[in-house]
């Protein structure tokens, strides 16, 4: 039995405030650029504060909910903040705030800023709604809205490459969205509209072939967003095309939204016992395990830094699906924590990539030779995030992989440790050479191109968010076991899932 929910206006605020801000962006920029920046910052900070308050409340045992609108006589749009949602919501809101601050510096000389900021803050709203959605239809609404309304951000540069990447993105994502819609129609038909419930809403008496269809539609649909091979094609193109701060949230939380959808589906639509009896999870383990290694292998070969990081995202987010597929409590804790940890590590890495582009004109790994001398702070942040990504203790990446490894042993699949360690090893292979180049190589300076020679550290608007992301990565690692940290929330969510 679920705990009684407390009616609260806070979840509503978290998704309504950014909409207001998006609407006000255009009038605000008529006043001045500063007014627009102030508006966006205040709203993003307020959303982050709301998300943290909700997370703190949930950590102390409350569940919040709110009804928004009655869509049809049967279906309400309904928000419900449980432990999993609160953790994801807080991750989203904080990373978004950092990316927004970074944008103020990074995007200064870009075109069409009204459109960029309007959609950037609007997508925060949809992602918060996604995190707090209390039933499948609400989840679908936010999922579709944010899939489609991120399109202007992906193609922001309007270059032919960006347009091509945008087309690829929208086709993949809409295909996935269609599968999710189909799955939700089938679920509604089989079980009616129901709040996400631990233990599942689908009855075990449902026609087994129907259950199989629903499951694979969900997995295929969310798998596109979570970038499971072979549905990952949009990720390596969209990331290099998008502006760096948007790449950071794209990799940090949007790919994770697919994994989050899979978590909701597995634990709160089907439930562990039903899935065990359906016998589908070993296949998911196989797909996810393959994705971890395959994407990591592809990452080694990429020269474009953002592309390499994009493949790394595919590989890392597959860990989450791998962990979920084990259906064990420890691995589920690892999955939820890894979403948060990965968001800040990968977010940080993309923010670094943006700085290298802006300050050094460096898009490729080879151009980063000797970068540490010109940009010591950025390089240090990059190195820390790389180590975290590989899973070096005591950084946050280690925490999540520790739980994942425990889960593998707990569910008696020790051979999967090979995937876990193999992925980490590959991460070292594709990330550490970059660190080596930055610290131990001499920069190649050609007379025509002075940017490499003259590059300096970025101003505080860009460096600040990067340092903050790195600090969060350190904190999440060192302070992992403190109360109120992601591990505690993930533990609460897992206890509910396996109750």
């Amino acid at each position, binding site marked *: 039995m679920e705990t009684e929910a407390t009616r609260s206006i806070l979840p509503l605020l978290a998704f309504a405030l950014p909409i207001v801000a998006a609407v006000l962006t255009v009038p605000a920029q008529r006043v001045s650029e500063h007014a627009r920046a102030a508006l966006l910052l205040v709203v993003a900070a307020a959303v982050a504060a709301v998300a943290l308050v909700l997370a703190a409340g949930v950590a102390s045992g409350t569940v919040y909910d709110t009804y928004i609108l009655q869509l049809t006589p049967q279906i309400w749009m309904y928000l419900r903040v449980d432990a999993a949602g609160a953790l994801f919501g807080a991750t989203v809101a904080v990373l978004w705030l950092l990316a927004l601050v970074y944008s103020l510096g990074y995007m200064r000389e870009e075109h069409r800023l009204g459109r960029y900021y309007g959609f950037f803050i609007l997508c925060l709203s949809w992602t918060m709604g996604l995190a707090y959605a209390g039933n499948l239809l609400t989840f679908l*609404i936010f999922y579709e809205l944010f899939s489609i309304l991120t399109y202007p951000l992906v193609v922001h540069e309007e270059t032919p490459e960006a347009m091509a990447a*945008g087309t690829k993105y929208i086709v993949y994502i809409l295909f996935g969205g269609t599968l999710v819609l189909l799955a939700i129609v089938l679920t509604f038909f089989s079980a009616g509209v129901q709040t996400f419930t631990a233990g599942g809403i689908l009855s075990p008496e449902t026609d087994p072939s129907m259950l199989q269809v629903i499951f694979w539609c969900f997995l295929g649909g969310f798998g596109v967003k979570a970038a499971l091979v072979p549905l990952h094609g949009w990720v390596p193109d969209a990331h290099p095309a998008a502006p760096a701060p948007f790449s950071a949230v794209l990799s940090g939380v949007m790919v994770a939204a697919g994994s989050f959808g899979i978590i909701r589906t597995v634990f709160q639509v089907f439930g562990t016992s039903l899935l065990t009896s359906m016998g589908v999870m070993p296949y998911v383990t196989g797909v996810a395990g393959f994705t971890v290694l395959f994407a990591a292998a592809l990452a080694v070969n990429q020269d474009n830094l953002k592309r390499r990081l994009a493949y790394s995202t595919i590989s890392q987010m597959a860990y989450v699906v791998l962990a979920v597929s084990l259906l064990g409590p420890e691995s589920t804790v690892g999955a939820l924590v890894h979403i948060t940890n990965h968001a800040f590590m990968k977010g940080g890495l993309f923010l670094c990539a943006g700085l290298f582009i802006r300050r050094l004109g460096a898009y490729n790994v080879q151009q980063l030779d000797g970068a540490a001398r010109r940009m010591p702070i950025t390089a240090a942040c990059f190195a820390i995030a790389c180590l975290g990504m590989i899973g070096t203790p005591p950084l946050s990446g280690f925490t999540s992989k520790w739980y994942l490894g425990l889960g593998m042993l707990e569910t008696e699949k020790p051979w999967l440790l090979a995937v876990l360690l193999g992925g980490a090893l590959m991460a070292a292979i594709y990330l550490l050479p970059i660190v080596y180049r930055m610290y131990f190589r001499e920069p190649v300076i050609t007379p025509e191109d002075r940017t490499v020679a003259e590059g300096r550290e970025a101003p505080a608007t860009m460096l600040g968010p990067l340092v903050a992301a790195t600090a969060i990565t350190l904190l999440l690692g060192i302070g992992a076991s403190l109360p109120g940290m992601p591990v505690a929330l993930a533990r609460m969510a897992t206890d509910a899932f396996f109750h």
Partner: protein
Amino acid sequence: MTSWPPLLVLFVLTPLVGAVLTPAVSDASGRRSWEWALGTMLLTSAMAGALIMRVLDEGPFSYVVGGWVAPYGIELRFDEFSAFVAVVCLLGLLAVIFSRHYARDALAPGRIPYYYTLLLLNMTGMIGFIVTGDLFNLYVFMEILSLSAYALVAISGEKTAEMAAFKYLVMGAVSSLSILFGVGLLYALTGSLNMADVTGRLAGSAEAPLVLAFAALTLGFMVKSALFPLHIWLPDAHAIAPSPVSAVLSGLVVKVGILGMLRVYQIAYGSGAIDLSGLNLMLTWLGAISIVMGAFFAVFQDDIKMMLAYSTISNIGYIVMGLGLASPYSLIGASVHVFNHALIKATLFLGAGALIHQTGRRTLTGLAGVGRSMPLTTAAVSIGAISIVGIPPTAGFLCKWYIALGAMQAGEPLFAVALVFGALLIFVYYIRMVNAFYFRKPQEAGAPAVHEAPATMLVPVLILAALCLVMGVLGRLPLSFIEPAVTRLLAPLGGG
């Protein structure tokens, strides 16, 4: 006032009288005829509001003209499906408002009064068709509607417009004959033309003529609705007509076929004299094919109105598929989409009309970069595009959701798959449109500087775009009266 019986008669007569008098009150500039048409539409809309209040209060009601009861006299009937007049009046009103500048620039001054006459006659036909309880009157009003539509397509006087109108006329005349034939057969079988009366008398009729009658009616109505493969007249007629006319044709006039089918179903299910499962199967398949074919052809169009016209074929496919599946959910979905598609398609056509009027270009290539100079119009068109693809929570989503559920309910899950993937195909061509508006640079240097359309064009488009969103998030409003109507329609079948 709301229950004053003759109101229903006045409701049909007002636009008719208004239409006839338009040329008489007009002045040289055509300004007076616009004011007159606007006044007529406002009055008609007010009556529609009063009638809908009453049907919500009391349920369906009817008015027997002159006290002559069936089968001798004429009966006007207003039920929940008749609530479509709300959309008819709203779109008619907005189309008239939109026409103020549009007609002045697109038509010769001498034709403007007749343009408004035809538009009002078209409204008369729609309204009469929807509220009549009599099969022969159904045919008469349909002819008023069709003839005024042919003339409206041709009104610009251009060669292509005349050709399109002629093509439309030929197909339309054949379909009208087919419907007349069906009505005649029903009269021969029952000796009555009143729908309720016919329903009561049909039981026990010989099967062969009955099948023939329903086949003739279905064929006729499906031509009017442009169901594949009877759609060939539609793209030219809808693309070439003046934009407010396109909005009325695509939003309302093609729905006549659907509403006609709903009346046919009311008779067939109510009498229980005929088993329609074969017909339903055919409609489901043709609907599915229409969805895919409409989307497929639209992808290759560069002309923005041509794209929208093909999209109407797809959307009629949704609705017909919903009718054919004949389960409660799918009928709800089809009925809701009759309303919502009218709003969405009117948004798109009026928006496209404003773009064409301001820029003088109608191809996607020519319209590249127009989002910068006309941000409000392109935003409205984009909302319409998102809505017609059925992205939640816009108005188009309800149809997709209910018809997909209906396909499950009817035990035909593959049609649910066809439906959602058809929508995916449709998105492909709308993304091209959005790309052209916002993300492509203007092709030609020195393109004329354009700005937003005048308020008479912009405001209708914005109202409609807002409705595309509102009808999605407040979907339960139309559903609250469509659900009982569908339940009643299916009640004779048992279960339901």
